[in-house]
């Protein structure tokens, strides 16, 4: 237990101490919010879908949590490069605990980031249908964070270099974001797009957030929660297995 805690705490400390990074990582979602929210707003309204800011704010929260959590897992690459990973790998603690500590730490950071962005959205004019929705939205933030922090850990256990990192960012993380319905409604898509978007775990997270916050459901709350929990379990197991196989 002590090991899980101390590694969780380490992730948190790293986050709090890297102020520049906090600003940078919040800057990107803000850019989306501003550029797309105000840029596409009129088109969206003309198409009869109402306010684009209302629509995309949950998506941007989902995106923030996605990037932040995957990134924390992949940051293992740096621990490998700078050697600290070895120190934890030879410790008399099961790799499972080390993996869980790191992953929960990353997930916690992602939850904080998501919460900050939600606050920024509120400041920018976003309004949930009711304040009672916030706890449910928070549940989805946590689920997304755990699912993708676990995915990040799994990936971080395999890739060895910057190249792999670029590859994963461009061909996995970005598509997960773009195909999740964060920026456009999942209704009335062609068959191919429908299938692809339904294969994307983040779709269910974004749907849950949007459903909770503005009551627009593509799926249903029970379905989203159950599916995310199941995917989370699968990714955590995969992460634990791959992490236990790391050689240094």
């Amino acid at each position, binding site marked *: 237990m*002590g*090991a899980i*805690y*101390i*590694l969780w705490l*380490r992730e948190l*400390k*790293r986050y709090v*101490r*890297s102020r520049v990074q906090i600003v940078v990582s919040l800057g990107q979602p803000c850019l989306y919010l501003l550029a797309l929210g105000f840029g596409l707003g009129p088109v969206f309204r003309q198409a009869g879908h109402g306010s684009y800011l209302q629509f995309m704010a949950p998506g941007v929260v989902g995106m923030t949590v996605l990037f932040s959590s995957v990134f924390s897992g992949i940051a293992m690459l740096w*621990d490998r*490069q*700078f*050697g*600290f990973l*070895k*120190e*934890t*790998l*030879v*410790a*008399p*603690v*099961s790799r499972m605990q080390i993996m869980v500590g790191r992953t929960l730490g990353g997930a916690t950071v992602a939850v904080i980031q998501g919460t900050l962005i939600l606050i920024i959205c509120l400041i920018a004019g976003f309004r949930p249908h009711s304040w009672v929705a916030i706890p449910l939205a928070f549940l989805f933030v946590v689920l997304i964070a755990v699912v993708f922090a676990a995915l990040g850990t799994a990936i971080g256990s395999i890739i*060895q*270099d*910057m*190249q792999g990192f670029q590859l994963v960012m461009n061909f996995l993380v970005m598509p997960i974001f773009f195909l999740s319905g964060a920026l456009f409604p999942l209704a009335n898509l062609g068959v191919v797009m429908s299938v692809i978007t339904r294969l994307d775990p983040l779709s269910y997270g974004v749907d849950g957030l949007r459903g909770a916050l503005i009551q627009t459901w593509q799926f249903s709350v029970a379905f989203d929660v159950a599916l995310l929990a199941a995917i989370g379990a699968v990714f955590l197991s995969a992460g634990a297995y791959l992490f236990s196989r790391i*050689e*240094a």
Partner: protein
Amino acid sequence: MISVHNLVKSFGDFTAVKDITFEVAQGEIFAFLGPNGAGKTTTIKMLTTLLRPTSGRIELDGLDPTVKQKQARQRFGIVFQDPSLDSEQTAWENMDLHGVLYHVPRKLRASRTEELLRTFELWDRKDDYVKTFSGGMKRRLEIARGFLHTPKILFLDEPTLGLDPQSRNQLWTHVKRLNEAERTTVFLTTHYMDEADRVAHRIAIMDHGSIVAQGTSTELKEQTGTDSLEDAFLALTGSSLRDEGADAKAAMRQVAKMWRR
């Protein structure tokens, strides 16, 4: 305490460790000497569960570290050749994290951390981030950290690299004391013959992945008909230079890994 039989490690078609066999008794200080690229670090990584052997058998305190990983890890401490500190945390935090991972009780953790940081003259920098430390200070911190818990077996992979004579002396005094007081088994590698001569009970000389000779310092000198360990070493490994090559190769590999097309 350590028993190794026909240990082999290959990376692709390159064999870094070729069928080595040796024993280290409990309470013994055993040194691995060898030019860069001889396979010393690779051997230590296999002994400490960081690498899976290609073939061969290892026992640490009667346990196979490839099977009973956690139990084996409980029994040893290690100072790595390469950096292994968390530079984004303070010296104190690095020590504390290590103590938690090794189940050192809180009070003992604090008192031993203070004692060790004082011994290695890092106490007044304890709240500074490791990233602000010089190379020598980082090395001292790694060594202090290695002593924080009291393992049955201590692995020291070129621990004195980059240390000034005072710190080297400090380190070996500490190692000897630990070895005498707690019968800690020590497995070390070094480039400095005088260190091996001073602290090691037995020495194995490794070259190109094989052990070319082992015994006490006196035995090695007799065997080669030389009168210093340095001469014995050169007689056994030849005087051709490959040190730079091996290091350069490792550096290249690192770069290639980072920027592989």
